């Protein structure tokens, strides 16, 4: 009886809600891991600031656009994304941002968005800012960007590279979050591996369908933008190229 009750409560609690709770909440990480993730996230944000400084010095107009891009990411995260399983979540906009603006810019904008989410929407927090920045504004965008670039290089159709970039970027964000939680809270029998497995298990159930819908959504959005004004889009895609000095 007890067992059944516990199990069904767990199901009711877990499945539809986990999707909404993707930011590590305030005070959730112990001091040690708070500081470690701050240190991990910091160099990427500094790198991002340098690349933004360069961009803005070359074209002052971009500062306004970046301001709007940050606000756009924030609004995206407040929208409800219907998932395949019927539950609702919020698109992360990680892939879209990385493809449009490049990963370094996104590390700064992502951190700003996370600060506002903590102070205005009570998502995430100040002590977990480093950890959340690292998973959502560093790992996610960098993965998305690399996949997008790599897939384009081997000549895959654009929709496929966008889809993979957005959905894999989304998934890796949650893998990173599970990793952060598992490192901070190793299971008592089983240690880090068992704990990582537990957190990944929950994320796998809820995040795979969400990653797929986010991928589809990103393809849709970029296609609509391309049909609206192809020139504008390629103009935007220039940003990461300049930031990287790739060509």
């Amino acid at each position, binding site marked *: 009886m007890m067992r059944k009750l516990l199990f069904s409560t767990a199901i009711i609690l877990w499945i539809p809600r986990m999707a909404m709770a993707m930011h590590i909440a*305030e005070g959730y990480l112990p001091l040690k891991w708070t500081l470690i993730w701050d240190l991990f996230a910091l160099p990427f944000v500094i790198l991002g600031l340098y690349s933004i400084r360069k961009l803005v010095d070359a074209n002052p107009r971009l500062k306004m656009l970046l301001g709007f891009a940050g606000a756009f990411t924030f609004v995206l995260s407040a929208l409800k994304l219907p998932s395949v399983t019927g539950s609702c979540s919020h698109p992360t906009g990680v892939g879209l941002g990385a493809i449009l603006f490049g990963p370094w810019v996104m590390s700064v904008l992502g951190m700003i968005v996370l600060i506002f989410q903590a102070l205005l929407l009570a998502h995430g927090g100040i002590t977990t800012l480093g950890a959340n920045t690292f998973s959502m504004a560093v790992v996610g965008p960098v993965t998305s960007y690399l996949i997008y670039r790599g897939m384009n290089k081997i000549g895959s159709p654009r929709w496929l590279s966008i889809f993979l970039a957005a959905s894999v970027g989304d998934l890796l964000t949650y893998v990173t979050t599970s990793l952060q939680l598992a490192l901070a809270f190793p299971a008592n029998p089983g240690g880090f591996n068992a704990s990582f497995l537990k957190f990944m298990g929950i994320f796998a159930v809820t995040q795979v369908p969400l990653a797929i819908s986010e991928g589809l959504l990103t393809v849709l959005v970029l296609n609509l*933008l391309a049909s609206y004004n192809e020139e504008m889009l390629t103009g935007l895609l220039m940003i990461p190229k300049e930031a990287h000095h790739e060509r």
Partner: protein
Amino acid sequence: MLIDNYAYSNRLKDVHPAEKLYFAMTTMAMGFIPNIYLNMAIVSMMGALLVFNAKIPAKVFLKTLLLPLWFVLIGILTIMINAVPAGSSALIKFSLLGITLGITQESIKASAVLFSRSLAMVCCLYFLAFTTPMVDIFIVLRSMKVPGLFLELMELVYRFLFVLMETSERIYISQSSRLGYMNAGTAVRSLGRLISSLFIKAWKDSESLYTALEARGYEGEVKVLTKKFPISIKNIFLITSVEFLLLVFAWLSGGGAR
């Protein structure tokens, strides 16, 4: 955004923002001490300050307190339930897919510490969020020598956020009044259109904003007048002594979790 509304209208809005930031941050640091009693003291102190001093309605405060609860509860259940060896002394045991899962006394203790710490720190965050407008936080950050470019971007994002939020709400209403969110298929399509038009609007607005600013002599920096706040020695003294009292309390109640 409810929290932002209260930030501009609460009774503590005229207190120097640096004092509020100092109070919230030191109390938050105090929350890292693994002591359930201390954490509960922080929760009640922050709650009382918000409801009685800042005059935030208790209902609003409690409702926002529920927001991070899902993450915290799910995370805690995940930490509480472990795979245990079959013959171990778990309080509750059940098997799933051939693995024996159980809750042990230690795992309950660990979860209790985690829960109370998270709750205490969330209350500190809410104290800051409910009493201090973002604009005032920018003033403090500027005096703390946060890189100018970062701050400027923050200010721009904060301003545009409301513009885009309102636009997206309007588009959403007009789409759903035309059955745009009838089922999952139409919802994805409508959302795609919403996001792309939102993006185009953001892009165009940024262009015209720049033109407008340049016409008014913009040279790479938006200059605004900042509000002057009186520094209260009394408040700083009070905050410091409260933090000291909390430390004494933590020491007297002897760890709590241990």
